[in-house]
Every structure is written in structure tokens, then in C-alpha cells.
């Protein structure tokens, strides 16, 4: 690095480039004589140099003196004999293929071993196809993986604990979206995971099929009540479902770290590394993404209507532990829901902002031993689970803080809550929206565009009859509502929610046209 700058500066100081270019030819000659004496050979080379400069001026580009060298190479071999035993190598081309090295070996006078490394111009070796080889790229990635694994073993978490993830869920349109995301996050972890999925409305095959795609250890538990439509009630029921899962942890004496992963939340992988540090009960900061998906309002209007006070009270969308300057827990940040009061969503699918509760369950992690029956496993500032939840889980507890007698013992994680590693989000479709079960379209949809070759021959398209017109108009009416009734008594298919209006109309028209000739596929 610096050496080149070194050389550069030397030459900038006035030692011209010509010095360097002459050197492979000159140095050997000068070696025999001192700098003071000019041998005829050096004068010759000087004249040659001037000649080359003139030629370069005429030609317009730098004229390499190598040409002369090769012209006179046979006669000048003897002139190049030196007192030292270094060889000088010359090359013909140095761009594409392996170069030819012409080496001159003067008779060795001294007994020192000649170095195999020669000073001088060498070819730049380029292999025939200088591009990456995919096999080698794969090998390199395996090496990197091995190195990173070793790093994790040495500098990462020493003895990773099993992760016990508790997720309440129920069958609905967005379940596949949320659950797949969470499933893939958990599948990516380098830790052992026990996933307790509590399903409202009983354990269904649909959810089970979705979960079976992962290779995780899953405990699929049914919760007998159905998920209510109103958000308030839904939050309560979710708490009850989580308590049910904690009961399972208690009964089966699962050992590890319990975390509450709601299926619609988004987790970063760093979160899981961070929660391995928890000793008893810890809290992380949760980013609250409470946004309305309702786009009818003019967004600029909303801004103008917010006055100065509201701006100041505008909440940081984060819930979590609050620390003082010496990194000790002093309080809690909660999401300020007051400014949204009255404009928030009431029921699932309402096009308004969905608000979180004061402190979400997902922001807490705890050691599973806290919920075990035997009191000797847990510190005395933890209440027993059974005492907190009276009865069979009819009451719910707002957050895991109710389990703790002294909430200052909660450990703040993620550099004292400054790092947000998970986000709370509630995006749901309306409760009555329909979707294909298991997201498998079975039986297949009717065709929406007629193919050139139809299996029932090239009958010309019929004009729709009057009765069929009525049918099509009613179907068009129905597209306004989300749910539509079946079109013909024969077909048992029901249209799915949120389909495009255009395709619906063409569908109706085509089905009307072909109703007489349709073959049930």
C-alpha cells in the first residue's frame, strides 16, 4: 500500500519514468561499472532512448523499446552478463494466455545458490476462463458456515436453552399468512424449539396441516371457546389461551425460556439471541404498528387536524421497559392509546386502527421454572400460577407482570429496551370473509377465459338468453357484497372474498353463457 506511494513520490521528485524503464536493460550494465564512467553501451542506450522518444512523438503513443530489445537480443546476450547472479526474464505478451518466459542464464561464477525468484517484468497470469466456479462457491459457503458455527460455539451463547413459544391462533383468512411467517422464523433458529399452539374453537385439521409443514416440535392444543369478534373480548381470550399453554408447561415440566409469539407479530432473529440471556423474567421493547388500513381519508387532512398538543403527545410506537441512565429498570413505556380513543377498531376487520393493550404479552419472556408447581425452583418474588388465576382460567391476567410481586425484578433486555427486535401488528380480514380451506383450490375454479380449443367442440358462442341475463345481473349485484350466493344449484362452489370485480363479472358472463353446456370438471 504505502510502498507504492513511496515509489510514486520518488518518481514525482524528478526521477523520471525513463529511469525505471531503462533499468532492466541498464542496471546490469551499470553494475559492472560505476556511475561515473559511461561505457559505450550506455551511450548507445541513451541514443536509442532519444530515438524512441522521437518515434513516439511522431506516432502519438508510447513506443515500447522492447521491440529493439528483441531485434538485438541475440547480439546483446553477452552484454547482459553481470557480476551478480540474478536472471532477467522477458515476456512476449501479458494479457491472455500463460506467458512465455525467456530466461537468460549466465554462467554461474560464485557458489551462492541462485534465487529462483527473478527481478524484472513478469507476465500477468490469467487462467483461460477467469470466472467463478459454482462448485467452489458452494465449498466456500460451507467453509464460511463452519467458521460461523465455531464462532457461535466459542463466543456466542454458551449453552442455549430450549425455547418454548406460545402462540394463540384460530382459523381465519389471515391465519395462513401470519402462521407461515412465524413458522419460518422459528424454523430458522439455531435453538431447540417447543411450539405450543393454542387454537380457539378446538384443534382443527386445517391448522394441523399448516403446522405439519415445519419440522418443529409442536404441541397443538385446542381451546374450546370460539374467538370473539370484538377486539376487547379477543384480547381477553388470547390471555386465557396463553394461560392454558402455561398450564401445559407446568404439567409437563417443560424446561427452557417461555416467550409469547403472537402469530401476527414480526420477530427479528436477534430477538431470540437476546432472550437467551434472561434469568427469570425479562422484558423487551415491542414496536407497535397500529395503523389504519383505511385509505378513504385524505392523509393530509389527518395531519392538519392534529393540533400542537397532540403532536407532542404523539406516541413513540414502542412498548417496553424504561431505564434510567445507570441501566436499571425504572418504569414502563406504554403505547399512548388516548389519542386514538373513539377512532379505533371495535371488531375484527373494522377499517380502523387496532390498538394494543397497555403492555402486550409478547414483550415478556420468562424462565419456564417460574410456572412449575414446586416452589423451590422459583424465587420468592414470583406468585404461583394457580394462585394468580383463580378457577379454571375464567379470569384473565393482563400481562405477565401480574405473576410478579415485585415488578422491579424484571430484567430489561435488548440494551435496556433501546433495541426494538419485534413488532406488534394486527392485520385481519373481516370475520365472515371466506377463503379456500387450506388455501388449496379444490375443486378447480371454472375457467375465466375461454380457450381456443374447448373439450366440448367448436360450438359458436350463444347469445345469453333473458333468464340468463337476469342471473348475470344478480351476480353483478352480489359482487358488491363480499359474500355471494352460489350461482347455480348444481355448483356447490361459493365465491371467495376479496376477488377482483372484473374477473367476477367475466366469470358470471362466461358461466351464464356456458351454463347449458357446462361439464362439471
Amino acid at each position: 500500500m504505502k510502498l507504492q506511494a513511496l515509489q510514486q513520490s520518488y518518481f514525482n521528485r524528478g526521477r523520471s519514468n525513463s529511469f525505471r524503464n531503462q533499468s532492466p536493460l541498464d542496471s546490469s550494465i551499470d553494475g559492472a561499472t560505476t556511475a561515473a564512467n559511461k561505457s559505450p553501451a550506455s551511450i548507445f542506450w541513451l541514443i536509442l532512448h532519444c530515438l524512441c522518444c522521437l518515434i513516439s512523438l511522431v506516432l502519438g503513443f508510447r513506443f515500447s523499446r522492447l521491440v529493439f530489445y528483441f531485434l538485438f537480443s541475440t547480439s546483446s546476450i553477452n552484454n547482459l552478463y553481470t557480476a551478480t547472479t540474478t536472471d532477467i526474464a522477458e515476456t512476449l505478451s501479458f494479457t491472455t494466455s500463460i506467458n512465455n518466459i525467456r530466461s537468460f542464464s549466465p554462467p554461474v561464477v560464485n557458489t551462492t545458490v541462485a534465487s529462483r525468484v527473478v527481478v524484472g517484468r513478469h507476465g500477468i497470469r490469467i487462467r483461460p476462463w477467469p470466472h467463478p466456479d459454482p462448485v467452489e462457491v458452494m465449498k466456500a459457503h460451507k467453509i464460511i458456515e463452519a467458521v460461523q458455527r465455531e464462532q457461535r460455539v466459542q463466543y456466542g451463547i454458551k449453552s442455549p436453552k430450549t425455547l418454548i413459544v406460545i402462540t394463540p391462533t384460530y382459523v381465519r383468512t389471515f391465519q395462513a399468512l401470519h402462521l407461515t411467517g412465524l413458522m419460518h422464523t422459528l424454523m430458522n433458529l439455531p435453538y431447540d424449539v417447543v411450539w405450543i399452539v393454542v387454537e380457539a374453537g378446538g384443534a382443527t385439521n386445517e391448522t394441523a396441516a399448516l403446522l405439519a409443514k415445519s419440522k418443529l416440535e409442536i404441541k397443538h392444543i385446542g381451546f374450546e371457546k370460539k374467538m370473539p369478534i370484538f377486539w376487547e373480548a379477543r384480547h381477553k381470550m388470547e390471555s386465557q389461551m396463553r394461560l392454558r399453554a402455561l398450564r401445559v408447561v407446568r404439567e409437563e415440566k417443560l424446561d427452557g425460556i417461555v416467550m409469547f409469539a403472537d402469530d401476527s407479530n414480526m420477530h427479528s432473529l436477534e430477538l431470540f439471541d437476546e432472550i437467551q440471556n434472561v434469568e427469570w423474567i425479562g422484558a423487551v421493547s415491542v414496536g407497535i404498528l397500529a395503523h389504519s388500513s383505511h385509505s378513504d381519508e385524505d392523509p393530509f387532512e389527518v395531519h392538519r387536524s392534529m393540533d400542537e398538543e397532540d403532536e407532542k403527545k404523539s406516541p413513540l410506537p414502542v412498548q417496553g421497559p424504561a431505564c434510567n441512565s445507570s441501566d436499571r429498570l425504572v418504569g414502563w413505556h406504554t403505547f399512548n392509546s388516548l389519542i386514538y380513543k373513539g377512532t379505533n377498531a371495535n371488531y375484527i376487520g373494522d377499517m380502523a386502527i387496532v390498538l394494543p393493550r397497555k403492555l402486550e404479552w409478547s414483550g415478556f419472556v420468562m424462565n419456564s421454572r417460574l410456572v412449575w408447581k414446586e416452589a423451590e425452583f422459583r424465587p420468592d418474588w414470583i406468585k404461583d400460577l394457580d394462585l394468580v388465576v383463580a378457577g379454571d382460567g375464567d379470569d384473565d391476567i393482563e400481562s405477565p407482570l401480574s405473576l410478579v410481586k415485585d415488578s422491579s425484578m424484571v430484567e430489561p433486555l435488548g440494551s435496556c429496551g433501546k433495541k426494538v427486535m419485534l413488532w406488534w401488528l394486527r392485520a385481519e380480514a373481516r370475520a365472515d370473509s371466506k377463503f379456500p380451506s387450506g388455501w388449496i383450490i379444490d375443486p378447480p375454479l371454472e375457467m375465466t377465459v375461454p380457450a381456443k380449443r374447448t373439450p366440448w367442440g367448436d360450438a359458436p358462442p350463444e347469445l345469453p338468453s333473458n333468464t340468463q341475463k337476469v342471473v348475470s345481473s344478480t351476480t353483478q349485484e352480489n359482487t358488491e357484497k363480499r359474500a355471494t350466493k352460489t350461482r347455480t344449484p348444481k355448483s356447490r362452489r361459493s365465491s371467495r372474498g376479496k376477488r377482483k370485480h372484473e374477473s367476477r363479472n367475466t366469470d358470471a358472463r362466461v358461466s351464464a353463457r356456458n351454463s347449458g353446456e357446462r361439464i362439471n370438471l
Partner: protein
Amino acid sequence: MSDLSKTLILLLLFALLLDLDAFELRKGQKTERISGSAGDVLEDDPVGRLKVFVYELPSKYNKKILQKDPRCLNHMFAAEIYMHRFLLSSPVRTLNPEEADWFYTPVYTTCDLTPNGLPLPFKSPRMMRSAIQLISSNWPYWNRTEGADHFFIVPHDFGACFHYQEEKAIERGILPLLQRATLVQTFGQKNHVCLKEGSITVPPYAPPQKMQSHLIPPSVPRSIFVYFRGLFYDVGNDPEGGYYARGARAAVWENFKDNPLFDISTEHPTTYYEDMQRAVFCLCPLGWAPWSPRLVEAVIFGCIPVIIADDIVLPFADAIPWEDIGVYVDEKDVPNLDTILTSIPTEVILRKQRLLANPSMKQAMLFPHPAQPGDAFHQILNGLARKLPHDKSVYLRKGEKVLNWTAGPLADLKPW
């Protein structure tokens, strides 16, 4: 009796515990002991094994030069200045030259800097000659052995050949007056004129505090496969290519510039040190001279050095087994560098990283201020101690002269 038996049982338990601890350490160990051809000598303490006498030269040879240009303290040739300071306050220093094993001459030959900060070697032979004339006339110890028990620190590009250009350096050869002395230099290449038998190769100076301040936590995963930042073509001095680095750097660029595994470029990023800590391999190809501070940086940051310089002699070659730590690649094999690196077995790579993680390895490459045990100063002294006791032939008979004081180019004979 019961007390005695109790204590015995306690001792046994204690010993058992220690044993268990040691066993565990061996299983999941992060580092491995380093022992080279001279044995497990990295952690040797030179104090008591040798005595060094420091000549008191007039300040025009050292202090005044440094005062003229304090940049000498930060460039990569600063080892000579720090070694002088270290020896002045080291316990191996003796004020009685009669009992000294080695004699040190503090002359800063690499401190004549251009405005750009690069040392000019043109006055160095005269400076060295003048210093030797001084010590041979004022003290009898030089003439006693003609310098065979003296050592000099010559950290310049080609050591005591005192030239930055290789052909010129070869032509000049080592300064004739230093023929019998021990040279401590950064340059090392086998069968080269400028490396004489018995020299001690040392790493170039790299600022320790600057490197320490850029450390990142070791748990950050290493995701870059091969890393290099520097020139591939020296357009200013070698426009045609093929001369600079004997064409090796240009070959690296031409073969691997589109390879995603190779993070190579000529840019100067501010995160250079951090990036090295995220790389598995760091290329250390030759430039105009075979050595460079890249080797030191690679060792400090735990990146396996890939040494592309034929016949190079690396620092402290007898104390550090460089073949086990770095990867040697011949210049002619550069086009196959990716095949070579990916075909190294994983266990070998992990072992190299363990060796690099050894703190004594990192210490041996540094010149910290103040000196710490196991650092490069101590390795130099260890090297000198390993050469003791001096052979009888070192001491010349009365009147015997070996050195030719008039040898060398005429220009060198002028007084300084």
C-alpha cells in the same frame, strides 16, 4: 490425626477439581499453543539471558533526526526508534560493556523523509558508516570482533542494502561494514543478497492503539471469504504492468475481479480494520518489496493471511510456525487461488483460526508503548539470546582485519 486426614482429603479434592478444569479447557479451547522450530519460545523472558550495551552516540544520529521530523514515530519503519527507547529502560541493558553479550548502535537510518513521508535511503549508508567509524574509534569492542557481537536495526525496504528499488538494492548488496554484524530487519527472502545468514526478521511497525480501537466483538460472524484492499497496478511507476509485484497482484485482479467470494478493490474504506475482522482470509501479496503491514493487521484481527510472495521469510520464523498459521500460495498458482482456498479442509481452517486467536501470537507482532511481555521487542531479544553464546571465531586475533573499509560505491565513502 483427623485434621491431617481432612486436609489430605481437601487437597485431593482440590487437585481433582483443578484437573477437571484443565480437562474442560482442553475440550472447548479457543486457542492453541504456538511453537516453532526453535520450540515453545514465544513466551520466553529474555531478562537474565542476555545483556545489551547501548552505545551513547551524539544526538545527531538519533535525537536530532527525530526532532527534525517527528513523523518517523508513526510510519511503518518506526521500529528502530521504539527499540532504542525500549532498550534504554529495559532490564537487559547493562552499563558495563565488559559484561555485555550484544552491543546496540542507535542510529536512525530510516528517518530522512520526503514531504510525502517516505524515507530516502541515499544518505543511510553514509550515516551508518559514520556511526560505525565513531564506535570503532571510541570503544574497543567493535575492533575486537569487527562487529560480530553487534546488532543493528535496519527496517527499510530491502534492509541493509539501503535502496527502495530491488535491482539497485541487489547491486549494492549489504553494506560491507555490516558483513559480520547481526541485522534486525523487516525484509526477508530466501537466497537473496539483502538477507544475510543469522538475521532476525521482524514485523513492520503498526500502531497498536489504532488497531485496538477498531476491534469489534468476536461474536460478529465472519461472512467475507477473501478480503484485500490495495493497489493491483502501480500506474505511476509501472504503467505496462508485470513489474509491480512481479505481476501477482495484477493476476489476482484479472482472475477474481468478478468473483463474489473475493472482496477486493483499491478503495480506502474507513471500515478497513472492521472488515478484516469479518473476513476469513486476508490476502498479503508482495508489492515492491515482499513484506507489508498487512500481515500484522491480519494476525491482530484473526484473519488467516494468504501469503503470495515466493521465498519470503516471515517475522520470527524460528519462533512462529507460519505454515501452520497462514496459507502460502506460489505466485504461479495465483490463477487457481479460489481452488486452493476452497480445498483447504475445514478442520485445518479452524485450527489456523485457533492459532491466530492465541494472544501471545498477537502480542509478538506488536510494538506497544510501553512494552509488554511477549511483544516484538521481547521476541527480538529472545532471538538474540538464542544466538548466544558467541562462537569462538567471533573474536579476532590481535591485528586481524576482515572488513574492507573502502569497499562499496564511492559515494558511500563520503563522510556524513
